[in-house]
């Protein structure tokens, strides 16, 4: 009798312990999921908004975006130069990186022999693993002199006298400018775009490609008329993802942009971006409104990159849904 009751007791403690753990574990895990997925981005947005309230009150939204002055002495802050700089460098970098990434993806999925695929894939992925400060430092010590002494004078001599385009190549080639920044930035985003495009190319059912081959299409025609149209939203997703990455890139751009708050008129002008302004001036901000304006900038950056990345995510998800086997 005693044995039975003690066993029952044990069983019931085991059971309560189990149920207790069940709830506890679920609660603990759920908290962190909720934190990372919801509270964390919300917290970032709220803190940035709270810290930038002074600047929002003083400069408003439209005025802040369209004001080209960034004058800490007179406490007049506008984001136009940084926004334009960010948009130009990102646009150029993405334009350079897009055809290259698609080429890389074609090579990996369609052309490379089986033994070469992981090697090329791995090498391109290694590009993504190199810290951004290394890109900046390497660009500053290695690329900048080459651009200033060789590439840019040559570009200027070749294109400088053409009408319309010529203005883009005016100015003194210093190497610390829009062109160098965009070039290095494009190298940094190639791996991100290439891997998304590669994954979407891999998703095309081989029966689609085989039918095209059966009709006598060449390999390029299959890629051009079957693979690329069917992965369009994946390619778009990769493009937007890398745009989001390029927008927020800090260290490499800080070395190469020259931190000059002006709207660049040629490819050889130094300029600034939102991230450069943040990296260089955050610790120097001595007045509340100065710091608050910097927070305003970072809030804009956060919102824009969050929206861009959400769109990219949506595009890629749509592609995945379509090809779900």
């Amino acid at each position, binding site marked *: 009798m005693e044995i039975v009751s003690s066993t029952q007791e044990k069983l019931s403690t085991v059971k309560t312990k189990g149920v207790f753990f*069940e709830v506890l*574990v*679920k609660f603990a*895990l*759920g908290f962190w*999921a*909720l934190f*990372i*997925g919801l509270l*964390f*981005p919300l*917290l*970032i947005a709220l*803190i*940035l908004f*709270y*810290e930038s309230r002074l600047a929002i009150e003083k400069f408003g939204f439209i005025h802040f975006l369209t004001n080209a002055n960034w004058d800490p002495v007179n406490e007049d802050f506008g984001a136009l130069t940084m926004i334009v700089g960010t948009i130009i460098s990102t646009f150029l970098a993405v334009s350079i990186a897009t055809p*290259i*990434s698609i*080429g*890389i993806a074609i*090579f*990996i999925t*369609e*052309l*490379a022999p089986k033994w070469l695929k992981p*090697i090329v894939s791995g*090498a*391109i992925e*290694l*590009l993504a*693993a*190199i*810290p951004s*400060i*290394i890109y*900046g*430092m*390497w660009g500053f*010590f*290695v690329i900048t002199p080459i651009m200033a002494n060789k590439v840019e004078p040559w570009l200027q001599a070749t294109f400088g006298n053409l009408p319309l385009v010529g203005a883009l190549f005016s100015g003194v080639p210093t190497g610390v400018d829009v062109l160098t920044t965009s070039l290095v930035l494009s190298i940094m985003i190639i791996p991100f775009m*290439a891997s998304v495009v590669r994954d979407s190319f891999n998703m095309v059912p081989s029966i689609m490609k085989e039918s095209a081959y059966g009709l006598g299409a*060449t*390999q*390029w*025609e299959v890629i051009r008329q079957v693979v690329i149209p069917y992965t369009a939203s994946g390619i778009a997703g990769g493009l937007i993802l890398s745009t*989001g990455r390029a*927008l*927020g890139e*800090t260290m490499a751009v*800080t070395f190469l942009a020259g931190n000059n708050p002006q709207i660049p008129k040629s490819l050889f002008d130094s300029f600034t971006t939102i991230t450069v302004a*943040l990296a260089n001036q*955050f*610790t120097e901000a001595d007045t509340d409104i100065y710091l608050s304006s910097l927070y305003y900038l*970072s809030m804009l*950056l*956060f919102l824009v*990159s*969050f929206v861009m*990345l959400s769109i990219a995510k949506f595009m890629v998800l749509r592609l995945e849904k379509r090809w779900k086997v």
Partner: protein
Amino acid sequence: MKKTYRKFLNFFMLFLSSLMAFYGIFWLFWILGSLFINGIKYLKPELVYLDPTPPGVEGGGLRPAFVGHFIITSLATLIGIPAGIMAGIFFSEYGRNSTFFKVLRQITDIMVSTPSIIMGAVVYALLVKPIGHFNGLSGAVALALLMMPVIAVTTDEMLRLVPQQMREAAYALGAYKWQVIKDVVFRAAKVGILTGVLLGVARITGETAPLLFTALNNNSLNLDLMKPMASLTVTIFNYVMGPYDYWHKQAWASAFILTMGVLLLSVIAKTVLNGNILKPLSHIARSFTKKGKEVSNSW
């Protein structure tokens, strides 16, 4: 005529694609090459165990930066890993059929790509302003926040690879959900989670932007988390921007060490994950975590 044109176009475009692949690899080799050449040249043991000299005086080393970097990264890893793994488990084991958590999972994916400098700005408001001065702890927190989404996403992806039947078998034996997670799912996905952790550590080791205005820098060795703490990346940043030639040399050498460390971490992570690139190496790595074998073979 048409046929030759099509053939030519085909050849030309495919040639162009191959060229693009080599273009990408070309940059990789250029970066690694110049890092290697310059890094090896200036690599001296003094770099690790001497303190920096006053600006302008040749010599000295970067001991505070190496020590600080190690402290900040380890602390960030200690905070970031448990949080990230727990969130990842929830997404995979509890949130799989809930639309709400599916959305949160996608947001987590987006947070992986958030500009890292934002994390610095946020932690500055949270931990530097209230305390009143820059401190090492805030740097570690910024890096931990950066790391959490990375680990959550990879953990979730790895747990999803564990076959549903394994869970069902455990349930059939009367196991609680937490027992299934602890003894079946987690054990099976150990290697995958290890990969995620390594990738997360690799990611934060090379970060500079979040440390610029949280941990700042320090010229003398500092073990106090409440004081400014040097890190390798911020030191490289300052030294490259600085005017002295020997600063640049030290920056090259530490950049070499940093890059090798980060690349090694990510190569190990990828090798452990898909052991087809360097089979022997992955075999060694896998033998440390023998239980993961069944899963990694089925990938």
